[in-house]
């Protein structure tokens, strides 16, 4: 499973990287070598400049959350807080319901993620492996549903959630997110890519279908499950619109909703930039951790995704 292809040797045997090949050819030509070296220096400078543009905003956010408000306003660009303070974080803790938001986000995200991975893989397995009447139609429906843009569904979902009496409850926030068609699609594709033979021998040995799925197929599907886990976690942790339409009481505010309220700034005086940036930095930490833990898998999506 672990195609841990280091970026240095990206896709080594199958896909020789462009530069190496042409370099060996060009080595006879000293001018070409010099030109290439100059070219690569320029490439690095350029890449570095781009990387700074992409990273700098986050650095600024972290630094500013340790500044005082006058300092953040007067000198937004400086990378050294002067004076450095953790007031913003204390304010979040004591002045805002930050811990409540964290708790709500955690409850919703964890429930959604684990259940979604399970339900999507179950459905994906059925669509990939089990033969039954109506399978094609079920799959077509799921794909069609995938095509409906989410924002279009905001009002409709609110209407239904209210109709079912789930408005302003955890159920209303969680249940509609439990299933996503794209996840089913990913799992189905994955299950189709692993050989049937193991399952067949288990079936001959008399294992039940659920047992085959649970103890044979799922362990083999770890890469796809991890992918789905990352997507679901990130998606539900960062979700805003659905929580806006499914709940209204402050006790059910998630991080996204809470910080959004902070941002629109009806509360308190001043611009409160350190406070807002501290909040947005903190709320980024869980997805950032997830990202760095699974970085290799995410970044090698490229190699991994090639399915022939």
């Amino acid at each position, binding site marked *: *499973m672990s*195609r841990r292809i280091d970026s240095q040797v*990206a896709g080594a045997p199958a*896909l020789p990287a462009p*530069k190496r090949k*042409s370099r060996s050819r060009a080595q006879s030509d000293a001018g070409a070598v010099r030109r290439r070296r100059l070219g690569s220096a320029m490439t*690095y400078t350029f*890449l570095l400049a781009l*990387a700074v543009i*992409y990273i700098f*905003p*986050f650095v*600024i*956010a972290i630094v500013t959350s340790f500044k005082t408000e006058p300092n953040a306003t007067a000198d*937004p*660009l400086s990378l050294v807080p002067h004076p450095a303070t953790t007031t913003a974080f204390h304010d979040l803790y004591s002045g805002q319901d930050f811990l409540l938001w964290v708790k709500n986000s955690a409850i919703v995200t964890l429930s959604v993620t684990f259940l979604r991975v399970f*339900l999507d893989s*179950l*459905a994906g*397995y*059925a669509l990939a492996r089990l033969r*039954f009447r*109506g399978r094609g139609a079920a799959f077509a429906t799921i794909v069609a549903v995938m095509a*409906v*843009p989410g*924002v279009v*569904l*905001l*009002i*409709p979902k609110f*209407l*239904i959630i209210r*109709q079912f009496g789930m408005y302003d409850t955890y159920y209303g926030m969680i249940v509609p997110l439990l299933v996503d068609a794209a996840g089913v699609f*990913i799992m189905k*594709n*994955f299950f189709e890519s692993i050989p049937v033979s193991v399952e067949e021998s288990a079936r001959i040995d008399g294992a039940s*279908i659920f047992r085959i799925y649970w103890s044979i197929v799922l362990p083999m599907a770890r*890469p*796809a499950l*991890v*992918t789905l886990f990352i997507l679901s976690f*990130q998606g539900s942790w960062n979700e805003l*619109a659905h929580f806006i*339409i499914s709940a209204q009481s402050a006790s059910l505010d998630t991080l*996204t909703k809470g*910080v959004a309220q*902070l*941002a629109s700034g009806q509360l308190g005086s001043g611009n409160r930039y350190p406070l807002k940036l501290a909040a*947005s930095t903190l*709320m980024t930490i869980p*997805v950032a951790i997830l990202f760095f833990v699974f*970085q290799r*898998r*995410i*970044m090698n999506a*490229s190699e*991994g*995704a*090639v*399915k022939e």
Partner: protein
Amino acid sequence: MAKRYAQGPWWRLREPGIHGRQAAAGWLFLAPVIVILGLFLVLPIAAAAWVSFSDWNGNGSPLGAHAHWVGLANYRHLLTTPGLDQNNFGEALRNNLYYVLLVVPIQTAVSLFLAVLVNRRLKFVGFFRTAFYFPSVTSSVAITVLFLFLFNPSGVINKLLSYLGATGPSWLYDPRGLFHVILDQFGVHQSSSLSNGFFLGVSYWDWLAGPSIAMCVFIVMAVFTTSGTFMLLFLAGLQNIDESLNEAAALDGATEWRKFRYITVPMIRPTLFTVVTLGLIGTWQVFDQIYVGTKGSPLNTTLTPAFLSFSASFNSNEWGVGAAIAFILFAIIVFFTVATRLLTRNPDRVPRRRRFGPTQRIGNQDASRVASAAPGSAP
């Protein structure tokens, strides 16, 4: 169930038994997904369709006595009846149209460019990929808060501009249209002939405003946050290209640009289609950023149909109008997706049935590509 099969003729003893078991398990496995999608996707669409043809104002149940059938009144209200709602809708469409027209090409170009850059065998290439991708994992709320800070009138961006001797605009507070500002530089001011004609309650002159300076901030933000995701998609496409093609071209003396233009671009056409389509679908649905950042201000120039649909329903209690906007938006997205499909169709491509040999590899990856939009979708 099993008993009945067991009593059947011998040739049906085995097969239907297994298939019966599989059918039961299959539907059981699918049940949660089907029930939830049905209840929270299909049913809502039906309910919203009804509301868009009704005069429901938020009281009671939309299926009860408070809602009455009004036919196309809500749609007419938006499309043909002059008034505040039509004006808002027209402005929202204009704003979002410019947003789409700028974001989609820029983000496609930037992400392809980044992908080509990090597709080389370079030291630290992993670091660069990470740096470019990181903004994609953060939430729209956090990023919007950050951009509100960066682009506030005395913020980071204007500070940087002042070092360069330039005075930045007040960004999110500046409703002037970009094209109007540029035209103004050339001495072109509001012309009366264009101000007297109206479409959807917005004068022709205002249709030509371009994105407002405020909207430009959201445009930059969109490119910043999505280019990483699309870079990964392009990277996957690029690594699918057979290197011998580039080598053959290099032997023939092709320049880097010509290789890019005549080998890379045609080979990644399916990815290109996917990226443009996903871009179009995403950019027509701008909601979070507007909700967090501006709520449509200044002077409605960051209003989008998605946000208008929300605020018409939840703030103004015009649920029928809100639902109608959602369906019009849906139609727009479908239209753009189909149009992209038609426009990017490869003229040389042999129809699927008559395709043979290696060409097959190039064309039929759309579906797996969409799936692999997910990071790391399996080796």
